[in-house]
């Protein structure tokens, strides 16, 4: 019964991953991160993604504050923030978020405030979606390793 639980959870994880790849939410770089996880660094993906979330939310707040200000004009600075966001998204394989950053950056290069606002909406939406899905993935992983742990209890 517990054995079935582990297998089912793994199947759920794989299915979720497959969907995310198919939708272009994640790309092969995410697989690369998974390959970097092993016994010596068993929570690597979770750790990196957590850092990514923290930094991304900081950047999103800055972008939102900038564009809420009607007087805002430092689009060059905005471009720098977007480059950071773009870079870290690409490093974890967050393809759709990265692509929105590219479009956002183009709008900011044109000093197109309306275009930037639209891009920001889209970016916030994509980011939220990504975050929810990755948390789902991490939860499944946690459940799976717990179920596997119960199956093979430690000897005392």
């Amino acid at each position: 019964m517990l054995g079935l639980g582990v297998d089912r959870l793994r199947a759920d994880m794989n299915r979720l991953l497959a969907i995310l790849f198919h939708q272009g939410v994640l790309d092969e770089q995410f697989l690369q991160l998974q390959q970097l996880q092993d016994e010596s660094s068993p929570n690597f993906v979770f750790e990196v993604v957590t850092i990514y979330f923290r930094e991304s939310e900081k950047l999103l707040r800055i972008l939102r504050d900038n564009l809420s200000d009607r007087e805002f004009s430092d689009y060059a600075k905005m471009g720098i923030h977007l480059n950071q966001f773009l870079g870290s998204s690409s490093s974890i394989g967050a393809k759709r978020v990265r692509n929105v950053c590219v479009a956002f950056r183009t709008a900011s290069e044109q000093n197109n405030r309306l275009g930037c606002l639209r891009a920001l909406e889209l970016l916030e939406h994509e980011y939220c979606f990504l975050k929810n899905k990755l948390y789902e993935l991490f939860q499944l992983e946690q459940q799976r390793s717990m179920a596997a742990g119960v199956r093979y209890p430690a000897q005392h």
Partner: protein
Amino acid sequence: MGSTALKIDGLDEPTEVGSHRDLDGSSQELLHVLAVDDSLVDRKVIERLLKISSCKVTAVDSGTRALQYLGLDGEKNSTVGFNDLKVNLIITDYWMPGMTGYELLKKIKGSSAFREIPVVIMSSENVLPRINRCLEEGAEDFIVKPVKLSDVKRLKDYIMKEELVTTEESRVSKGTLKRKLEVSEEEDRVISSTTTSSSSSSPSSPSSPSSPSSSSLSPCSSPMNSPSRRHKTTEESSTDEPMLCRYSSC
């Protein structure tokens, strides 16, 4: 574990020197890589890529810190000469606030103590003039982000070969006369088969099995020709030097 408890300001974690030091104090088996990137996410990833490839890693968040670590920030530092702090490779992001990777590259290549250290530039953008500029300034390679395990492996193979040659050469010079006589012939064979980069007109292909990329070396007058450079993919076939970079980012 996070990057919060910094022992040294600007470093993500203390250098791994202690844990990797061999009993005799030498750490020549493990490559020591200095990674420079202002992005914490990228630092974590490159650090892991390197560690999983059996390298020692020191990660810093700026060019300034990199120079400090090397001891190039003005003060005469005793870093040079300490075997276990010796850096075998510097890998740096291009766009960083303050000092760019390009500026860092120039500083390193302009230093007599450190110009021999290979420097690799990383960038999320595939900008040809930028790539050319870096290579002209002496960068060993230019990697388009995101960096992959295969990139690190390729770099490591190349650097290890270079280190092997250096080690062999220094061993020869330190050896006794008796040893020198018997070793010299062997050294000639080893050096001629592995030093494909320094002599660009050398036609010999390396005999070591772990360097598949060297066989694609084409004769070139550029002093920066490195054996791990592949024939470049798409854009310019008109330039002299075969480029090593990964252009695809699909």
